C-alpha cells in the first residue's frame, strides 16, 4: 500500500507549467492527499487563480505521475474550501522563484493593500528600491515591476 509521504514525494515531480521550476507541493496548491481503503488516491487541489489555465495541466500531470509511480487509480478534486494564498508558497518555493527570475510575493495579513502590492524585491540585485509598473502581467499570477537600483524590469509572482 502506498503511503502519504510517497504520494507527496511523487507530487514533487509535478511542476507548474508556467513556472516549471516549482512543484505543486512548493506552490501550496495541494490541500490534502487521501488514500482510500482500496489503495486508490484522491489528491485535493486548490487553484491559484480561478481562471488559471494551468490547473488543467496540473490535474492531468498529477494522474500521469502517480500512474508512473504505480498508483493505478487516482483522481484530482478541485477544492475551494480554503482559498489559496501566496502565503502558502513554501520557503524553498520562494528561493526557486527568485532563482527563476520571478520576485517572490511578500507575505501579508488580511486584505491585500496597495502597499503590499508595491513592495517587490528585485530578483536580480535583491534591492527593494523598486516600483510597480502594472499589477497585471503576461499571466494571471504575475505583476510587472522596475528596479531603480539595477534598472532591470522584472516580473513578480503577485501576492494573492
Amino acid at each position: 500500500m502506498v503511503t502519504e509521504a510517497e504520494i507527496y514525494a511523487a507530487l514533487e515531480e509535478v511542476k507548474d507549467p508556467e513556472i516549471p521550476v516549482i512543484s505543486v507541493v512548493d506552490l501550496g496548491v495541494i490541500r490534502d492527499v487521501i488514500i482510500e481503503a482500496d489503495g486508490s488516491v484522491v489528491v485535493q487541489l486548490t487553484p491559484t487563480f480561478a481562471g488559471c489555465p494551468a490547473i488543467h495541466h496540473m490535474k492531468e500531470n498529477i494522474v500521469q505521475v502517480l500512474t508512473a509511480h504505480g498508483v493505478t487509480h487516482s483522481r484530482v478534486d478541485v477544492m475551494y474550501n480554503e482559498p489559496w494564498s501566496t502565503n502558502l508558497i513554501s520557503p524553498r518555493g520562494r528561493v526557486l522563484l527568485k532563482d527563476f527570475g520571478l520576485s517572490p510575493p511578500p507575505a501579508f495579513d488580511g486584505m491585500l493593500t496597495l502597499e503590499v502590492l508595491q513592495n517587490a524585491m528585485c530578483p536580480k540585485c535583491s534591492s527593494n528600491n523598486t516600483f510597480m509598473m502594472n499589477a497585471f502581467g503576461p499571466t494571471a499570477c504575475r505583476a510587472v515591476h522596475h528596479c531603480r537600483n539595477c534598472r532591470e524590469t522584472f516580473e513578480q509572482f503577485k501576492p494573492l
Partner: protein
Amino acid sequence: MNIVAIKDLLYRLADDDLILGHRQSEWTGIGPILEEDIAFSSMAQDEIGHAQAYYVILNELFGEGSPDALAFGRKAGDFRCCQLVEFPIGDYAFSLVRHALYDLAESIRLESLTKSSFRPLAELSKKLLREERYHHMHATIWIKQLGLSTQEANQRLQSAIDFAYPHALALFEPTAQDDTIVAEGLQASEGELESKWIEAVTQLLSESGLRLPAVVDKTVHYGGRHGKHTEHLDKLLAEMDEVFAIDETAVW
C-alpha cells in the same frame, strides 16, 4: 435549500462575468497603452474564469449543462446578465468606467456572498474576492488619475459615467427569487447591495473630480435578469459561439 433560487442567483453571477469578460478581452491587442492592453486582457481571463467556476457549480451540483454548453450553447434570451455588460467596448473612457462601476459592485456582492448559507458559493466567493481586489484597485487608480488630470480626460470620463451609471443600476435588478434568496441567507438583498454600491461610487467620483448623474427612474434599464437584452448581446454571442456552433467537441 431552495434550488430554484440558488440557480437563479448563480446564472446572474456567471452570465455577468462571462459577458463582461468577453468584452474586456476585445481590448487585447488594441489597448490605448501596452500596460492597459495587458491589464484588460488579464482581467478578462479572471472574469471568464469566475464565470466558469459558477457554471461548474451549476453543472456538478444541479445537473445543468457542461460549463462550455452553458457558456456557448445558449440563446440571448436564456442569459441573465444585466444589459451594462453587453455594450460594445466603445472608447477607453467607457470601458474603464464600466469596469469601475462593475467591479465596485462585484466586490460588494462577493463580500456578501462570503457569508452565504450555500457553502460552495461562500467558499468560492472568498477565493474570487481576493482576485477581485486587483480589479478594484486597477479601476480606482485609473479613475482617480484620469479624473484629476486634463479637462478632456475628465469630460470623457464624465460622459461615460452619465451613460453607464443608469445602466449599472440594473446590476441590482431584483427577480422573483430575491425574497427567497434573502430569507434563506444566500445573499443580502439587491437593495442593500445597491445602497452600499452607490455610497462607494459616490465616494470614488467625489475623490476624482467627477459627479454622479441624477437618475429619475432606476428601473429604465431593467430586463437583463429576466432575459430581456439589447441587440448587442445577439451580435456578441454570434461571434463568441462561432466555433462551438461548428463543432461542440472541438479541443483547443
